[in-house]
């Protein structure tokens, strides 16, 4: 997908997450829209495009965040790397694989984010972060991921000519 389309789309996703979703809390879970979008795009289009989306999306989120620049970049790169693997292909229904990748990707995302925050001197209560923030957010990611994969699958098909060949 052309960067001319990807960048505005990712900026839109980041703004949505910053202006709206950051204030949404469902039993402690905050929807990580950029994570879901990067994961779904990686599943739909492969690891190369996923990594580029992760880098750009993470950079925009970092610019809008008060945290260290590069934290979300690293976390989303890890997610794209996870999403681009062939894990779970023998598990049967594609949905199972999506759920598995969302679970692993979500966990990796939060682990990397927390690790970077710890490295950069932020106070991190790992127990609280895992139980009260990461666990509910990952659960929400797993729930949202199948819908996001359908959405990005549709977008991918619309951009069939641009993307890599099957």
């Amino acid at each position: 997908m052309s960067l001319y389309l990807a960048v505005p789309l990712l900026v839109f996703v980041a703004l949505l997450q910053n202006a709206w979703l950051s204030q949404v809390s469902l039993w402690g879970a905050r929807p990580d829209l950029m994570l879901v979008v990067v994961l779904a795009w990686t599943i739909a289009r492969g690891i190369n495009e996923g990594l580029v989306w992760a880098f750009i999306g993470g950079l925009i989120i970092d610019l809008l965040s008060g945290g260290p620049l590069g934290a979300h970049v690293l976390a989303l790169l890890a997610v794209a790397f996870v999403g681009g693997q062939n894990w779970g292909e023998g598990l049967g229904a594609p949905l199972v694989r999506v759920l598995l990748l969302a679970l692993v990707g979500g966990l990796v995302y939060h682990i990397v984010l927390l690790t970077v925050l710890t490295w950069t001197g932020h106070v991190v209560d790992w127990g609280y972060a895992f139980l009260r923030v990461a666990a509910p957010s990952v659960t929400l990611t797993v729930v949202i991921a199948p819908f996001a994969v359908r959405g990005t699958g549709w977008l991918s098909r619309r951009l069939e000519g641009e993307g890599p060949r099957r």
Partner: protein
Amino acid sequence: MAGMRETPVRPWLPLALIVLALLLLVFSEAGTLGPVTGAFHYVLDPLLRVASGGVESTGNLFQMVRDVRELRVRADELQAEVDALTVENVRLREYEAEVQQLRDLLRFVGDYQFVAPLGADVVSRQACDTFPCGDVVGADPNPYLRYITIGVGSQQGVRVGMPVVSSGAALVGRISETGPRTAKVQLIVDANSATAALLQTSRATGLVVGQPDGTLRMDYVVHGREAGAAVGDIVLTSGLGGVMPKGLVIGQVARVDRADYEMFEPIIVRPAVDFSRLEVVLVLAGFEQISLEEAEDGGGPDEPSAEQPG
């Protein structure tokens, strides 16, 4: 699976992007990316304002039940009235305590000159003529940090380190980063935030630090003082360190974890501000911080040093 694309994997791509991300992290922590991020902010800030406005108007569309809206307005009016009365009450108590202290001081150390503590004006929208007012335009997308983005920036004279308050002179946080037209505020409930504080009734001082769950804890309050902390006590900024004005309301004591064998008694503080409902804040741009060097030299706050982190 359907839709899955098989692309020739470029083995260098993940490594290259990870190295780039690490470089970003290192340079960002070293503080050398300021101009670059500033340039990005020129593009992103207006977009963020538009998005925030869009989200706000979309949210209004969903308020379909008129009665609920009217009740909310009424509740807000009543809350504002309660806030105003609470603030007045707090300030009167503060004056009373201050007068008592000054009387004691005058009695025993009349030869010394004391600088009058900085009073905090009651904040309202009208105060925007004096201080830069900022609409809250975003919350931090990082789930582990508690920052907000406000709609005023360096162009309006906002600088890093300036205190930010809400209505009722309640402390919201401190400016941590400025863009041209937006600024990031580190909330007092952020886990990295620490504010010098005192209890209004006992005058015991301590340090109010943010907790991961969004509450506040007051540390280093010496256990066993004659008048210790009690549930319901008001917690104010002490002004110690010179990075915050004295007398801003931080919150109210919710619980005292008293243990006889411990030197300090940790106090759980309920913040005075409902951070999820913040709409307008005020940046105390006129407050001049006292740098540590000045304080050690015994100098006055002649040279403002708002850049100093607290």
